[in-house]
């Protein structure tokens, strides 16, 4: 079978899984739904591997297979079919998405066991995987937007999974609204491109753009900026990032899957896919790179001040995606996508380990209350440390090869990109700092009561409550289940985390500069038309870059050790000396407040105006009641004729007869 057909199989597996669970959950016994969902995604992964094999079987020039199911829209000038594009980039994304998703499904089987909404969860999760695969396999803008929207919907459904918790539903709405802004921008960009090129499929758009636009054409820059807005909304870059930390209200596996490994990378994928457009409008690419770097630094600083464990990791995600954006916007596609892959591994791992710790803490997420889990949760500790090392870019871990490769490429570009690369190294230092802040604060130090209880083998029962506001809850559907599962005790969780830990260690092997260039060569066909495909920095330059990165990482780790473990009082003193800085960081640079003032309140007031003035007075009063009032007045006028007076009726009769007679009299003359 050709790779195109396998593409449909890849899509079919999670869709079938989602629908099966959605319609048949009543008849599925016990916890079968979870295994079914995991199997579906594993099926998709298997199909993706077959797709890869099929693709590798073709020659390098032919590695771009389009498969159309049917012509979806075929009218005047508009030609869009239900078509998927199977080329190295999409196969790569499929492998990453389906691989990491299957591990997270496995983790969730244990994590969500006691939840009353178990079946619903897996249906949603499978639906999400289907949407993400649709997005990356889309062969034209229409299907891309469809997948984009589905992914946003799935994200909303999963963030507000515990729907009776109002903080969760508010977070879901926030995520959805910000995503919609991106959706609108994406649609407008699609309009602009279609308007100029007359095509909707990727190939047509790219060739059309060559003809329709000159370099740095205004419309093209506008379209690319709109694409960037869409990408940033989905990938949580400045200023559309505020939804991601709040999205931690969802279950931890959801955070691992959507907000670390897959959905937030959709924006990076989009930029990589649309690279011909960005290369033709370098201004837009520069804007993207700058925003990516600023986001990276911003998120890293905020992560230093957060106390919620999952939120620290969320800000870390924002920061790391800044790296990826920087990479693809400085036209270092392979490096950026390499980092995407390794980030998926170690970020998902970090989230999973965090989930295990939070379960041990009975859903308490604040690191101020955690400490000393090193001995009571050894496996979790080990995996968390591996993830943190990879995140920080410790030498020879996967993150080391990918992140520092991005910075090496960026530095090599020169000009303003070099400045951005320097910023990137500063960010790397901060990354190492906050990553090991987490490690030392949570796992090292004196054990807290929960850790001691765990070492004794007991898991104390806690009254269910909202972890942020403390409001009491229950364990029925819509709230989390009563049991808390720790990796040491649940083998599916341990298995998934183990696989990811292994990948986080060895994942760098596909991109060791000068030794293996597997990923680069694999992705070459997609990026063959890039101007920068030949502008690879020399191996020496790359190793120098890697070396600087590694040193920065080790220094960062050492600094973290000093600040957070051995001389913690220094940190406390620092915090007291700079209260304004601390507050600024803790309030996340006041972005939420800014949006509240600038956007939310004016819109709310506008809505109020609409309700009171426009709706009730104009529409209801003038149009509806005015019209009926006119009719009523007219009919009461007409009603006056029917007075009930016999003599009035007789008068009309007589007058009518007289008029008739007059007519005949005149007519006969």
């Amino acid at each position, binding site marked *: 079978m050709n790779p195109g057909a396998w593409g449909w199989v890849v899509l079919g597996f999670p869709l079938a899984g989602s629908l099966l669970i959605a319609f048949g959950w009543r008849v599925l016994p016990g916890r079968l739904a979870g295994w079914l969902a995991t199997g579906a995604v594993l099926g998709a992964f298997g199909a993706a591997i077959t797709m890869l094999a099929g693709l590798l079987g073709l020659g390098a020039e032919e590695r771009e297979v389009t498969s159309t199911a049917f012509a979806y829209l075929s009218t005047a000038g508009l030609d869009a079919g239900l078509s998927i594009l199977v080329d190295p980039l999409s196969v790569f994304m499929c492998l990453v998405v389906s691989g990491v998703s299957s591990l997270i499904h496995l983790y969730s089987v244990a994590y969500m066991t006691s939840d009353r909404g178990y079946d619903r969860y897996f249906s949603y999760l499978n639906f999400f995987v289907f949407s993400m695969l649709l997005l990356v396999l889309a062969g034209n803008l229409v299907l891309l937007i469809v997948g984009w929207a589905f992914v946003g919907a799935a994200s909303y459904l999963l963030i507000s999974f515990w729907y009776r918790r109002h903080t969760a539903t508010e977070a879901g709405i926030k995520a959805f609204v910000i995503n919609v802004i991106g959706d609108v921008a994406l649609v407008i960009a699609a309009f602009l491109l279609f308007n100029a090129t007359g095509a909707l499929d990727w190939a047509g758009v790219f060739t059309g753009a060559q003809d329709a636009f000159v370099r740095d054409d205004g419309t093209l820059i506008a379209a690319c900026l709109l694409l960037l807005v869409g990408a940033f909304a989905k990938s949580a870059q400045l200023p559309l990032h505020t939804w991601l930390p709040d999205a931690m209200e969802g279950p931890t596996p959801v955070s691992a899957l959507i907000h670390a490994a897959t959905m937030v990378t959709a924006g990076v994928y989009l930029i990589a896919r649309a690279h011909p457009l960005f290369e033709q409008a370098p201004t837009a690419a520069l804007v993207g790179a700058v925003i990516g770097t600023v986001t990276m630094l911003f998120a890293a600083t905020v992560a230093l001040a957060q106390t919620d464990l999952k939120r620290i990791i969320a800000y870390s995600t924002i920061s790391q995606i800044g790296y990826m954006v920087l990479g693809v916007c400085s036209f270092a596609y392979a490096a950026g996508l390499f980092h995407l892959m390794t980030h998926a591994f170690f970020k998902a791992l970090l989230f999973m380990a965090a989930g295990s710790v939070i379960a041990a803490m009975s859903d308490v997420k604040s690191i101020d209350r955690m400490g000393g889990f090193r001995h009571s949760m050894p496996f979790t500790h080990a995996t968390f440390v591996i993830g943190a090392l990879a995140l920080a870019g410790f030498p020879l871990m996967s993150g080391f090869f990918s992140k520092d490769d991005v910075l090496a490429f960026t530095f090599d570009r020169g000009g303003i990109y070099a400045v951005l690369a320097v910023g990137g190294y500063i960010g790397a230092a901060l990354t190492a700092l906050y990553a090991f802040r987490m490690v030392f604060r949570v796992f090292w130090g004196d054990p807290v009561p929960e850790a001691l209880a765990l070492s004794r083998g007991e898991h104390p029962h806690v009254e269910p409550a909202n972890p942020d506001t403390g409001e009491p809850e229950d364990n029925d559907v819509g709230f989390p289940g009563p049991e808390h599962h720790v990796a040491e005790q649940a083998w599916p969780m341990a298995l998934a985390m183990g696989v990811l830990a292994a990948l986080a260690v060895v994942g760098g092997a596909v991109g060791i500069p000068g030794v293996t260039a597997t990923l680069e060569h694999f992705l070459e066909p997609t990026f063959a038309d890039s101007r920068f495909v030949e502008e690879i920095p020399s191996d020496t330059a790359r190793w120098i870059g890697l070396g600087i990165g590694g040193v920065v990482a080790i220094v960062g780790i050492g600094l973290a050790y000093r600040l957070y473990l051995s001389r913690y009082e220094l940190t406390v003193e620092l915090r007291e000396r700079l209260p304004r800085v601390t507050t600024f960081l803790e309030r996340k640079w006041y972005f939420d407040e800014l949006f509240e003032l600038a956007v939310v309140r004016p819109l709310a007031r506008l809505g109020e105006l609409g309700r009171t003035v426009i709706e009730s007075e104009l529409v209801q009063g003038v149009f509806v009641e005015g019209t009926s009032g006119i009719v009523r007045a007219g009919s009461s006028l007409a009603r006056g004729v029917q007075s009930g*007076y016999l*003599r*009035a009726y007789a*008068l009309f009769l*007589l*007058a009518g*007869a*007289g008029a008739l*007679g*007059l007519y*005949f*009299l005149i007519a*006969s*003359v």
Partner: protein
Amino acid sequence: MGFETVVFVVAAVLALAGALGVVLLDNPFYSVLSLVGHLIALAVLFLLLQAAFVAAAQVVVYAGAVMVLYVFVVAYVGGGERTLVSESDTIGRLGPLFAGVLLVELTLAVAGSGLAASAGDGAPVARGFGSPAAIGELLLGQFLIVFETASFLLLVAAVGAVVLARRRRGLEEDDLDGDRAGPELAPASPQERAPRPGSAAPEPERSTRTGGERAGQASEAGARTAEARTGGAGPASARVGGESPATGSA
């Protein structure tokens, strides 16, 4: 001929006077009477037009039966309003105006438009024209269906009148009162008959449901006491009183 003209003028004047009397006289009784006069004048005019049978029918049926019926009802119902036209009566002002306009139109139509047939004395007619024999031939020959339908119409009207004038509870109460009446009907004295026409009028209302319940009950009580006094003649008078309006409206 001279004689005909004189007769015509006299009859016409009488007819017009009667018509105006109907319209303008206050008392409806006088209106009825002036209509009777009008009808007789009209009968004379019919005679002038060689319509002997129609004239006779007019006098016998119309003036004789229909107007008598009218008289009964006017006596029963009474006068009604006293004033002819009130100050704010726009229709009363406009009415004669419209009628006048209509009159002008009709006159113009007749006189001015040149109705050829109506000028002159009319077509020559045979000797028996308008006689009962001629009308009878027409009725039973050419206009047989019309004749039968007219008789059917009369039947319908008679049934309708009975239904309209019937009391609400039907004839049961009549029978009840009739049973109670018995043979006391004959020896009722004239003095005791005096209050009866007065009580006869409100008593039929005893069985009506709308409005006059209390008055009806009071009259019933009055009738009962009268009955106690006259020993059964009261219900008899009730029956008599109940029958007269029925016959009056039939």
